[in-house]
């Protein structure tokens, strides 16, 4: 089987894809179905080996821009499974390095094709693909919740939670009523690690690194704080203009390839994304806009009520206490945050989680706490997702 990537330029070329799909078996990887294909869109689809020649001829003849993404799908899948044995095996109760997480994203999608698909939304500064997992039962016109982890490199419990969430989704779909309803009626976009370069750096060189790894013009200091790099009151407060500082806001909003990729994706899917969750550590907080100003958002009452309930759900499991509220007054004022940006884009339900603990271990949270942290956080996330589903807008 071959996987093709085409970019139809106009309605005529879209029509060619349509007729192709009606003549032979085409499995669309992105978008989900042929009916969603539009001009200028990147379209990935799988065809049987026996049809591959015909497809390639057709594409060549039409003059459409295309390339073969995967030449032999089975071989690619086999290689992925093999590499798991070669490197360190993936574990949901251990911290996994990037290579292991990357392989896991391919595996989890391959093992659960009806619930999970993987795509690449961009490249990091150092050229690594930024993987996104789309979770949910395939369906048309579904609204979505976007969740990302690993903004800040040293916050290892964060990517661990995204992986846990995906595991819970695939393992309890069809068994847990809430999860099943959520996945049937909503899509979840899960970005397991945003700041991949930084994450790798914390494994190879400096466990306490926070920022991206991009070079800064005119300075020997590296990196931008991705959560000060969004266009929301950018660099006005709680961020630094000094590239050597941990909260450096960058040379401009979305100067970082990682933040630009995330923002681009959200902008492209704005009509479907109804909630934005971004996972950080530590401090045990559940925050919502605004952080760039002390001014309260117009949805303050509703967001505060949701945060209150979600914190209560989280606490119910192991008595872990969370504080909640608008970012500026609950943690500190800080401009350029992705949650504020998402909210101002119109994504009403925008939350930042700061996971365990409150400072005893801080960033170096023991692996023995991964499971309890993830279990309790999942309760809060499911509560929020369920609320969103019942209050779609």
């Amino acid at each position: 089987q071959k996987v093709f990537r085409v970019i139809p330029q106009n309605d005529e070329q879209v029509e060619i894809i349509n007729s192709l799909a009606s003549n032979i078996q085409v499995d669309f990887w992105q978008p989900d179905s042929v009916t969603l294909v539009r001009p200028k869109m990147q379209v990935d689809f799988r065809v049987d080996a026996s049809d591959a020649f015909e497809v390639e001829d057709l594409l060549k003849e039409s003059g459409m821009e295309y390339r073969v993404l995967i030449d032999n799908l089975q071989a690619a899948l086999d290689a992925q499974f093999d590499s798991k044995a070669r490197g360190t095996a993936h574990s949901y109760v251990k911290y996994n390095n990037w290579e292991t997480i990357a392989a896991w994203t391919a595996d989890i999608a391959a093992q659960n094709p009806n619930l999970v698909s993987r795509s690449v939304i961009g490249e990091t500064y150092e050229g690594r693909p930024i993987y996104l997992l789309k979770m949910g039962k395939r369906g048309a016109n579904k609204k979505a919740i976007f969740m990302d982890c690993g903004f800040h490199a040293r916050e290892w419990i964060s990517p661990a939670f995204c992986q846990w969430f995906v595991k819970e989704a695939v393992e309890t779909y069809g068994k847990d009523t809430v999860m099943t309803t959520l996945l049937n009626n909503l899509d979840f976009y899960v970005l397991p690690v945003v700041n991949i370069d930084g994450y790798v750096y914390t494994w190879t060189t400096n466990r306490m690194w926070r920022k991206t790894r991009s070079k800064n013009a005119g300075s020997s200091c590296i990196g931008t704080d991705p959560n000060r790099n969004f266009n929301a009151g950018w660099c006005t407060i709680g961020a630094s203009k000094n590239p050597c500082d941990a909260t450096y806001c960058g040379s401009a909003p979305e100067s970082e390839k990682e933040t630009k990729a995330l923002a681009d994706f959200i902008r492209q899917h704005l009509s479907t994304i109804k909630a934005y969750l971004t996972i950080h550590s530590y401090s045990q907080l559940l925050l919502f806009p605004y952080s760039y100003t002390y001014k309260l958002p117009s949805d303050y009452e509703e967001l505060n009520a949701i945060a209150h309930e979600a914190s209560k759900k989280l606490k119910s499991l192991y008595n872990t206490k969370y504080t909640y509220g608008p970012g500026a007054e609950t943690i500190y004022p800080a401009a350029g945050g992705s949650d504020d940006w998402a909210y101002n884009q119109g994504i009403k339900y925008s939350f930042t989680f700061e996971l365990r603990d409150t400072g005893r271990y801080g960033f170096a949270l023991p692996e023995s706490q991964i499971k309890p942290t993830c279990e309790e956080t999942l309760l809060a996330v499911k509560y929020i997702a369920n609320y969103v589903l019942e209050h779609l807008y």
Partner: protein
Amino acid sequence: DIADVGHKYHLDLVLEDVLAKDTTVNCTAEVLYHLGNQNTAPDVQFTLEGELRTTAEADNLFYNQIKSLDKVLVAENIPDSQGSVSPAMEPVHLLAWVASGYVIWQNSTENTKLQLAQIRRVKQVKRSDEYLEFDYLVLLHEMVSQEIIPWQMTVLWHPQHGVQVTQHSCQPQHSLE
């Protein structure tokens, strides 16, 4: 707000024993941050409403273990990257935590929130008297600026005489490598 002096905060706290989670002690405190002078530690007055549990047995155990070592204790990265602290290093970690509490107090303002992030290096310094001495290089995490600040501290400890930080100084960032 106290004109010409600074800002005073009255706090009602519940202290939780980290090693015995169901043990709590109520505490009231007053903290005075001095106006202008960022080089003076805030004044702290406090009253504990109750008693702290005794740790004499564990203290003496640790004390004797260190005293009986053939070679001076040397260790790095506590906790390690995965958040692990070996049982033998637990007391060393706790001692650093207490000592860094003093350093943090001495260096706090209304705009800082400092926490011990990790012990980079610890080396025992042999003494002829009864005290145990440890030379620590710790990493402090400042929450507002999000900076990691390396800090050297010399810590003296004795089961009956408690903890003393005899010397401490913040280190340049590049000393981390």
